[in-house]
Structures are given as structure tokens and as C-alpha cells.
């Protein structure tokens, strides 16, 4: 299978967890009856004595992981983003306040769980995690980002990190681009000088396609992968904004408090430029594919091209 084809986030996650378990005996994986559907169970098949399926008990799952971390384990929690949010207060009070080594891998985020509908489609989690002191937030754009990040975050990074991925759909976004995953870093996927599209997650695939379309219209578009949403890479965001003078942000998340908000917090205070924030404004719904939902909720290539053209025409006024 070509590395440039569409791959599955959770299948790669399962493989990586086993690799990480082999490398570090202190890594434990905790899940809440979603071991099979997140592929966390792959870890359990190999490391039976450090895989904990706590049953359908998300609040306990988080605090249990905190206890393990407090005495020396490197805790990795794997569950659906939507139901991890049920334990928001546990994440705040028992993980973040004690700054413990708990890595929370939130799968099935955004619209990736296309069939299960609004209850399962988590579009508020970046905002909810970003607001907590000590918490770090990483959003891999594709499986290649996940490969770059996961081992380093689990084994070497101290403190809590929220790692947000989708269920399956991972189109190629960062393959062939050389960088190491670093907390606090954003990465330029494509250079340009008229406008920048900045964002996180699989919608960057739509952003890259939009940039191609716009090139045909004579518009030069930079695309930035905001891999680390918190801490955010002020330097890269400011440098790109200074070069392009206009920014469109895109995310598979509410436009309130998410990646666009984080970028706006930087730009509004240090270098205001004309800006549009693309994202969700309401709950999701069941559909036949992830891509169908991106189109329906105006997060596809077409919607991005439209937003870019609007910002460019406003900027000229």
C-alpha cells in the first residue's frame, strides 16, 4: 500500500501502541470498553499485564490513569473523544492539577465517526482541553503526524497531553515533508505569499487542495499545520501572517474556542490581519462518509476557496 494513500488512524494507533509498549516497560494503556474499536486492544494482546479495560467508566478511567501515573507509570488513555469529555472535571482536577504523565488519545474526533451522528461526533474538545492549565493539545493531521508524535509524547514528554485523532479517514497530508514532532510547533506544509490557511487535522487535506485551485487563479497560498494547538507556535503564526497579511483558519471543531480562536488570540494581540475562522457552528449528524460531512458543514475544498476569495477581496478594500 502506498504511503500516499488514505489510511486508518486507529489501525496505525494500534501498531504504534505495541511499538511503544516494547520500548518502555512503564507504559500502560487504559480504555473503557472501546479497546477493540480504538485498536487499544492490540496493546492488550501483547502486554496483558499492563492493559486495563475498566469497563464503561470514563470518569474512573481518567482518575485511575492519574493514580498509575502518580506512582511511576506512563499512562496512555485511549477512548472516544466524545466520551472522554464526560470526564472533563477528572482531567482538570486529577490529571492537570497534579501535572501527571497521562497521555489522552482521543479517537473518533470531529466528524470521523460519520455514521453514529451528533452524540459521537466531538466538536468541542479542543476548546475544553485547551482551557485547562498544564494541559497540552496535539492534533495530528494524518497518520504520518501520528507516527512522528506518539512515541515521543508518550515516552519522553512530561505532563498531560491530549492527542486528538479521527477514527479512520486519514488522507495523505504530511507524507514526505520532513519534520520532527515538537510540542509548541506548527509546520509549513506549503509556502505562499498572498494568504495563509492555518489549521489542524484532516481538513488540511481540503486546505491543500484549495491552495492548488487558488494557484490556478493566480493566488499564492501558504498552508500551515498547527500540529501543537497548545502550546501554540506564536513565532511561525506571526511570521507567516506577516508574510501573507491574511489568514483563513480551518478545523473540524466548533469555531468557538478551537484552533481558529487560538490563532486569533495570537494575531489579535500581536499582528492583526484580516481573518476568517472556518469550522462547525452546530452539532453533527449521521452520514455515509466523513467527506460527505465535511462538504455538508462547509469544511471542504470549495468552502475554503470561497472563504479565501472573500478575505482577499475584503483585504483590497
Amino acid at each position, binding site marked *: 500500500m502506498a504511503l500516499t494513500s488514505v489510511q486508518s488512524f486507529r489501525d496505525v494507533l494500534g501498531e504504534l501502541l505495541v511499538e511503544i509498549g516494547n520500548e518502555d516497560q512503564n507504559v500502560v494503556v487504559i480504555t473503557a470498553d472501546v479497546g477493540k474499536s480504538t485498536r487499544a486492544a492490540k496493546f492488550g494482546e501483547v502486554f496483558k*499485564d*499492563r492493559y*486495563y479495560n*475498566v*469497563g464503561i*467508566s470514563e*470518569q*474512573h478511567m*481518567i*482518575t*485511575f*490513569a*492519574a*493514580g*498509575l*501515573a*502518580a*506512582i*511511576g*507509570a506512563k*499512562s496512555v488513555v485511549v477512548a472516544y473523544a466524545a466520551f472522554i469529555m464526560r470526564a472533563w*472535571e*477528572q482531567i482538570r*482536577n*486529577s490529571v492537570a*492539577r*497534579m501535572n501527571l504523565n497521562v497521555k489522552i488519545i482521543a479517537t473518533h474526533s470531529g466528524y470521523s465517526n460519520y455514521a453514529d451522528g451528533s452524540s459521537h461526533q466531538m466538536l468541542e474538545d479542543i476548546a475544553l482541553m485547551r482551557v485547562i492549565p498544564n494541559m497540552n493539545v496535539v492534533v495530528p493531521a494524518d497518520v504520518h503526524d501520528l507516527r512522528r508524535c506518539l512515541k515521543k509524547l508518550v515516552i519522553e514528554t512530561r505532563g498531560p497531553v491530549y492527542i486528538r485523532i479521527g477514527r479512520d479517514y486519514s488522507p495523505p497530508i504530511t507524507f514526505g515533508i520532513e519534520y520532527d514532532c515538537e510540542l509548541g510547533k506548527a509546520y509549513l506544509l506549503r509556502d505562499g505569499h498572498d494568504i495563509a490557511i492555518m489549521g489542524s487535522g484532516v481538513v488540511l487535506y481540503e486546505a491543500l487542495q484549495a491552495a492548488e485551485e487558488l494557484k490556478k487563479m493566480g493566488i499564492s497560498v501558504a498552508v500551515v499545520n498547527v500540529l501543537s494547538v497548545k502550546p501554540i507556535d506564536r513565532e511561525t503564526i506571526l511570521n507567516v501572517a506577516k508574510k501573507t497579511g491574511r489568514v483563513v483558519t480551518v478545523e473540524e471543531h466548533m469555531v468557538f474556542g478551537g484552533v481558529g480562536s487560538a490563532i486569533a488570540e495570537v494575531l489579535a494581540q500581536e499582528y492583526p490581519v484580516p481573518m476568517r475562522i472556518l469550522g462547525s457552528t452546530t452539532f453533527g449528524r449521521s452520514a455515509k462518509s466523513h467527506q460527505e460531512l465535511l462538504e455538508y458543514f462547509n469544511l471542504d475544498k470549495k468552502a475554503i476557496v470561497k472563504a479565501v476569495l472573500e478575505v482577499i477581496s475584503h483585504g483590497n478594500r
Partner: protein
Amino acid sequence: MVKGDAKPILKISDLINLEEDIKAINKLIKNSYEDVLLMYKHDKHVHLNSSLSCLPILAVLISKYIRRSENDIDRDWLILSKGHAAPALYAILAEVGVIPKSELPKINRIDSILQNHTDISTPSIDFSSGSLGQGISFAIGVATWIKRMGGKGRVFVIMGDGEQDEGQVWEAITHAASLKLNNLVVIVDWNNTQLDGVTNEIKPKHYIPLIWKIIGWKVLWASGRDIVSMIMAFDEILESDKPTVIFVQTSDVRKLLEAIASHGAH
């Protein structure tokens, strides 16, 4: 006295030491009672009644059972899940020399090392508490790791009776039972009081010990007014093959405290 599954297991040597132990524990209770009242005098935000109800439990545990070690898997852990009783813990830690007594009147001052709910920034505190139902889950994580690493440490958790309302307690105790964590001991401070009033008026709780028992915990009872009953219960847990919970009836602990205070420790 101890009820439930308890069997008297005191050895002759224990009986000889018992009188000395009780004398020392009474003295610790007397002094720490005065410390808690002092903290309350300096800050009325101190949760006085919740602190006093578990004071004898903490005195027995810390003076007689909690073992220290440099190694986290070989020492005992103490998780104050009902974190609002922090002043009781601070008082005893001050009496046994872990924190300076001069810190006690400063509780809740902006520059104090003593927070109104326990915080890991304070020396020897294992868990940042304040939100109910979480200490038990945290303790299960610690106890699980100790067992996996073959450590000798045990994990003691102090919970409230009102705290039993939290859904997370169900999630946690069913998991602990399935893990057969015989190094985990929960003590429930059964003081019949929660924030809005009498526990049973807010939500009945008489069935709660039965639930713990039926899902696989060893269940013991003791009286917070009776030091011997607590010693017997704590001695018994050391021989359990499953997690143990001790429900300590504490609604009339004030009487013990007042008696000790007025007669002095003999």
C-alpha cells in the same frame, strides 16, 4: 466494636502493647483536636465538623499503621478523598512532626502551604483533593501499580458517607473488586452528614455497605468513638485477600473528643 466479617485476631503481645498504644493515640487526638480548633479560630472556612469526625480515624492510621519508605512502591499511601477534612490531616501531620506546627494558624492564607483541600504541594500529601469520588479511583491506580511492581505498599483512602452519592464511586469500587486489590483499604467516615444536611434525608444510604460487600469487598464496621474497635478492624484488613472497606460510625465522635479534651490524655 467490630462487626460484620470481623474476627478477633489480637495476639497476647498486642494486648500488652494495646494500653500504651491507646494512651499515645488519645494524646495525639487531644493535641490535634486543639490544633483543628485553632485553625478554625483563624479561618472559619475550615470544614470543622467533617474534619473532627475523621480525626480519630486519621490518628489511629497515622500513628499505628502508615509505613514510610523512600520507595514509592514499598511505602503506604494515604489518600484523603474527602479532601475537605484536610485540617484534621494537617493537625496530625503537625503533631507527628511532618509539617511545622507554626504553619497551622496560617491555613488558607495566600502564602500558606496549607490549602483548604489537600494539595500535593504540601509535604507528604499524596493527592490533590477537593472533588469527591476521585480519590478512590486514584488510589486504585496507585494500588494496581504497587501490585504489578511487587511492592509492599498499601493504599489507604478516607471517604465520606455523602461522597457515596457520586457515580464515579460505583465505577471505581466495581473495578477494584475485579482487580482483587488486597493492598487497598477504604475507610468511610460515616458521620451521617453531607453539605445540605442529614445524609439519609438527602438520599438513603443504609444499603451502601451491602453493595460494597456484594460486589466483592471485605466489609468491616468500627466505631469512631472506640479506638480498640478501629485497631481491631485495621489489624484484620492486613490478612484480607480482597479490597477492604471499613465503615466507621462517627456521628458521635464529638463526645469522644470533648471527653478526651476535658479529662486530658492519661
